[in-house]
């Protein structure tokens, strides 16, 4: 988007007052009904409590109460070495789990000024895109259940299993793989991964056509989603929204292509997908399109996967290869020191954002020069995008509130950390 004068002008007093992230009812009408949606309700996608004020069937007040799955990940990471902190991270955004691992490793690598082999960067691209597909499949399945379409859930979860099989094949775990390491990835791809992955791509392309047939021409679906919960680009950017929700409002901002992209995305020709409209329908459609694009990216990455090591050769960071431990004293010492003490990171602070399935996922890492981070601030996209939820629900029906909540796709593990 070209620089324009309009986008620079921010109104001082606007509809966001008094509290930007909450919607308060105008009147003190005693007939207004206050209900709690959640914290245990299937449509809240986790444990989110939405305090809703209703005037008949119309929503006039919304307050989000979060914190039910707060597990103190930030505090825990401060007590761990960098090496041991990695498994904590995918537990927050548990749908786009690989993005979290990658973001943490990239922040640490940035602080260390460590170079990562190209093959590892490309492998990270493959698995980030697989995680994105996984996240969007769960979004589509559960989102359609919220709108009354049960069938799509089973299609999506069947396809999701295919994606998780690939994770299992590469690193043994289906979710939370801890495949990404500081300095590269844990191991190279196993034999047969390439063929299996291409089979999955063919299967998924066929599936995506079916998703379109299931929801794209369904008049009930269109009536429930078109024109509902319209998010204007100005409002989205003021509320800090990023990712597919922002792109569904017509802003072509994607960290994978902005400034040329990060990591392996620099080598891949990539244009962000943009949808116009900013309503629930656009937010559903953009995720289906992004799945298609992710399949293309994975295919491109498989085709051009560079040869070489998958881990940095800096032995002060990377564990020595297993076979060396039997013959080399140096390797044994390094192994022992790395496992017990970890590596030290120069004092300073870095913020390394990446594009996860639901927006900018950044790690603000403050190091004091020791082997443990002084402070890690996890900037999850869901925490931010939940802020704009209340204002989107102004004056809609209660059933549309469910649709809007599904369409912005919060993950409560990410919100509460």
């Amino acid at each position: 988007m070209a620089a324009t004068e309009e986008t620079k002008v921010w109104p001082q007093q606007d509809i966001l007052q008094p509290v930007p992230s909450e919607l308060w009812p105008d009147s003190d009408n005693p007939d207004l009904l206050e209900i709690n949606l959640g914290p245990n309700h299937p449509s809240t996608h986790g444990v989110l409590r939405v305090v809703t004020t209703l005037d008949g069937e119309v929503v006039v007040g919304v307050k989000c109460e979060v914190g039910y799955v707060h597990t103190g990940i930030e505090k825990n990471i401060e007590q761990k070495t960098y090496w041991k902190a990695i498994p904590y991270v995918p537990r927050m955004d548990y749908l786009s789990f690989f993005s979290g691992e990658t973001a943490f490793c990239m922040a640490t690598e940035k602080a260390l000024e460590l170079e990562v082999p190209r093959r590892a960067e490309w492998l990270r691209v493959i698995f980030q895109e697989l995680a994105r597909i996984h996240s969007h499949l769960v979004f589509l399945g559960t989102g359609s259940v919220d709108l009354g379409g049960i069938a799509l859930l089973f299609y999506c979860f069947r396809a999701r299993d295919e994606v998780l099989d690939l994770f299992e094949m590469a690193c043994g775990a289906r979710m939370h793989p801890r495949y990404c390491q500081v300095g590269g990835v844990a191991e190279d791809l196993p034999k047969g991964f390439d063929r299996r992955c291409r089979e999955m791509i063919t299967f998924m392309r066929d599936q995506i056509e079916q998703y379109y047939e299931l929801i794209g021409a369904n008049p009930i679906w269109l009536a429930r989603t078109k024109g509902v919960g319209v998010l204007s680009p100005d409002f989205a950017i003021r509320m800090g929204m990023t990712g597919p929700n922002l792109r569904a409002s017509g802003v072509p901002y994607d960290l994978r292509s902005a400034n040329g992209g990060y990591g392996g995305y620099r080598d891949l020709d990539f244009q962000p997908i943009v949808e116009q409209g900013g309503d629930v329908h656009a937010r559903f459609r953009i995720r289906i399109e992004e799945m298609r694009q992710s399949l293309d990216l994975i295919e491109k990455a498989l085709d051009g996967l560079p040869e070489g090591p998958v881990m940095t050769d800096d032995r002060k960071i990377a564990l020595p290869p297993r076979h060396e431990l039997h013959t080399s004293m140096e390797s044994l010492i390094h192994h022992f020191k790395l496992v017990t003490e970890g590596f030290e990171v120069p004092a300073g602070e870095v913020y390394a954002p990446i594009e996860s399935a639901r927006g900018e996922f950044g790690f603000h890492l403050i190091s004091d020069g020791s082997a443990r981070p002084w402070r890690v601030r996890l900037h999850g996209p869901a925490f931010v995008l939940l802020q704009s939820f209340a204002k989107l629900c102004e004056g809609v029906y209660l059933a549309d509130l469910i649709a809007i909540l599904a369409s912005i796709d919060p993950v409560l593990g990410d919100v509460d950390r």
Partner: protein
Amino acid sequence: MSDVLQINSPTWGAPDQDAGDRIQAAFGAEAIVRRVEFRGELTLDLAIERYVEVCTFLRDQEGYDLLSDVTVVDYLGYTGEVAGYWGGDGRDINRDSHTGKRVVPEPAGPKRFGVSATFCKVMTVTDDAHRRLRVRVWVDEGESVPSLVAVYPSADFHEREGFDMMGIDFAGHPNLRRIIMPADWGGHPQRKDYPIGGEPVQFSDEV
């Protein structure tokens, strides 16, 4: 294409020193106390009384339209000989182990807490010119930081979390209450003097 890729994240762009110069031209040289550049990221330490004005300037004149993050950092014990992990009464999992600090860093700032905000240019620039910039103010226990909510509405949840987890008073915030911990929680868990073990178990009272 080289064999190894450059690791420095391109998501920051080049350090925006010019913005710092223009801030000093508009608000006087003392508006920026210090400039820190680390790994290509520019942090401007601001005088606290100029904080909101400078952020408004960044938004309206410099085109930083996205507030991407507000981080509060507790630097208590940062320059101590051993990273400050205090022994508690119960399980003493806070005591320093041999994985502790060996390098004693320079003090990060003049006061205990650093409150920093990271901005990004999104809609005001074309695809290859997204820049990021961080501004920071320093406060001690009991001092308050002016709230950014009136300037950047997305600071709402971030500042509530800063209050909840670190006990920072964001003056002028319209809804400053706990966001993640329960409303009747005591203390601020993310502070360095808050133990991670040995605290009383919640919800274990006899009914």
